[in-house]
């Protein structure tokens, strides 16, 4: 199982030149949970390279608890969380964070515009900021409607809009694209990718294809502990299987298994792909498409 075979590096920061370090999250021996029951157990890591850090794990692994603890919403039972060297209990540390919960967090009894103004007031944002996020998320037509009347996707858009009311340097986004249609999910991902150029973004998702698309680093949790923390590009699936959509491939490949239009072939790694393609073409196979059939992130859940 990948989680147990890959090394865990508590600090990925060694390779990052000091002049590139603008912001930093450091968790040292953090245990955290609810009502005396620990969900996170002795977690330690340092994050300082601007990028998207995808936080993965099965249900109950502790993703939301990790976000809440970093955001200062939950006090750790033991250990410390520091933001740019400041303890998360201090207001100066929290002012550098923006948090998006997996639930909407929009107060009852307010229209969309009122809800955004409510958070703008709490955050110290301006009326112009409210107008800007309304345009940014394309929710102009929703602003006069009661939040409770919106569809799940519309609610999510409003909730995400709140994240952009004020510029922060660290973003904790717990399932920001859940309940969104593919088009809007893409737009949100693009916004988040924009943030990650200069800022630290922790991003949890159950969509492994999305995680693979946007993440540079992976922080995988399992049973409250870090199972893997490293570059996503260094993750290798236990099996490397490619799918080949082609004509005239029957009897040429060593494997005869098929998934949809794709003939499946297991290789030892991506470096073998060009050689296989050349061999097939030499045998007269007309290749339409070659793609990886396994997402290495799936192994983190196995």
């Amino acid at each position, binding site marked *: 199982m990948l989680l147990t075979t890959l090394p865990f590096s508590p600090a990925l920061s060694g390779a990052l030149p000091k002049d590139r370090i603008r912001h930093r999250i450091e968790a040292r021996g953090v245990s955290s949970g*609810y*009502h005396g029951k620990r969900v996170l157990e002795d977690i330690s890591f340092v994050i300082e390279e601007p990028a998207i850090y995808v936080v993965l794990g099965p249900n*109950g692994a502790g993703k*939301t*608890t990790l976000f*809440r603890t970093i*955001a*200062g*919403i*939950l*006090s750790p039972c033991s250990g410390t969380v520091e933001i740019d060297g400041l303890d998360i209990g201090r*207001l*100066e540390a*929290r*002012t*550098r*964070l923006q*948090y998006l*919960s997996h*639930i*909407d*967090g*929009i*107060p*009852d*009894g*307010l229209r969309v515009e009122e809800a955004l103004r*409510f*958070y703008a*007031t*709490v*955050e*110290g*944002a*301006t009326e112009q*900021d409210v107008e*800007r996020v309304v345009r940014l998320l394309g929710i102009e037509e929703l602003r006069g409607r009661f939040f409770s009347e919106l569809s799940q996707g519309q609610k999510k858009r409003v909730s995400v809009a*709140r994240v952009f009311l*004020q*510029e*922060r*340097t660290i973003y904790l986004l717990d399932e920001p694209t859940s309940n969104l249609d593919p088009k809007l999910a893409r737009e949100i991902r693009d916004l988040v990718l924009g943030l990650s150029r200069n800022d630290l973004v922790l991003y949890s998702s159950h969509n492994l294809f999305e995680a693979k698309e946007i993440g540079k680093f992976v922080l995988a949790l399992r049973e409250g502990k870090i199972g893997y923390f490293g570059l996503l590009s260094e993750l290798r699936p236990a099996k490397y299987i490619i799918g080949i959509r082609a004509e005239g491939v029957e009897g040429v490949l060593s494997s005869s298994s098929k998934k949809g239009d794709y003939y499946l072939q297991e290789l030892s790694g991506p470096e073998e792909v060009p050689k296989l393609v050349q061999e097939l073409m030499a045998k007269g196979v007309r290749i339409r498409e070659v793609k990886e059939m396994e997402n290495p992130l799936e192994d983190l859940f196995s």
Partner: protein
Amino acid sequence: MPGGAGRSPAIGSLLGTTIRRTISVGWRYLAIGTALSLLLALILVLGSRNSTAFAVTFPLEVPLFAVLGSMGGLMTFTGDRTKGVFEYLIAYGVRPRTLFTNGLASTAAMAAFILALSLSVGLGAAEARGVALTWDLAKSVSFYTVPMSFAGALFTATVGMIWSSVSSPRTGLNSPVGLAPMIGIAPTVLVLIAAESVPSSEYYDVTVGAAAIIIVAVVVLLAMSARLMGRERFLSPL
């Protein structure tokens, strides 16, 4: 965009917004509580020229409607908790204790609204109708109606807020929000029954004593809330 450093939560405006939202969320309770209290006042004034009946019944029944009409405070608190509003506010640096006291303050504001309206309309109508406003009536309003309205409303809200926070979220009549009004109005109903059945010489002992007991209960609950309502009690379920 403006930078984030130096931000501090606007606590004052948070309370104002909470009260506005409490009106919006609990307007049905507020409307029913207000309407019933006014209706009762008018029935008592129009139905009897007997100043003793008005002086005994009116002060005893107003707290009942104040408790009922202030339910919006509890509803807003439990809604904010389950919908994750509190965890955002805590992330922005708002202290959980502030969220708890905001819930109580908005409850008290609703009770004050009903109390002010029913007292001014009831006493005004009585005066206009020629029902004598006696010293006994003034004592009942001062030592029972006003304190019991606030104490009863805060008792309901405190019980409901603590109960809903320490239990799994439920909705419906058997949820803390569903049962809290019944628990909350129970003391005022008991006082109403007891005061009608005791000799007039014991009337003030019963009413003022009951108000004192509820005030003590609220103080005890508030003291317990600091221990019972840990930070994680304000978070939405996972």
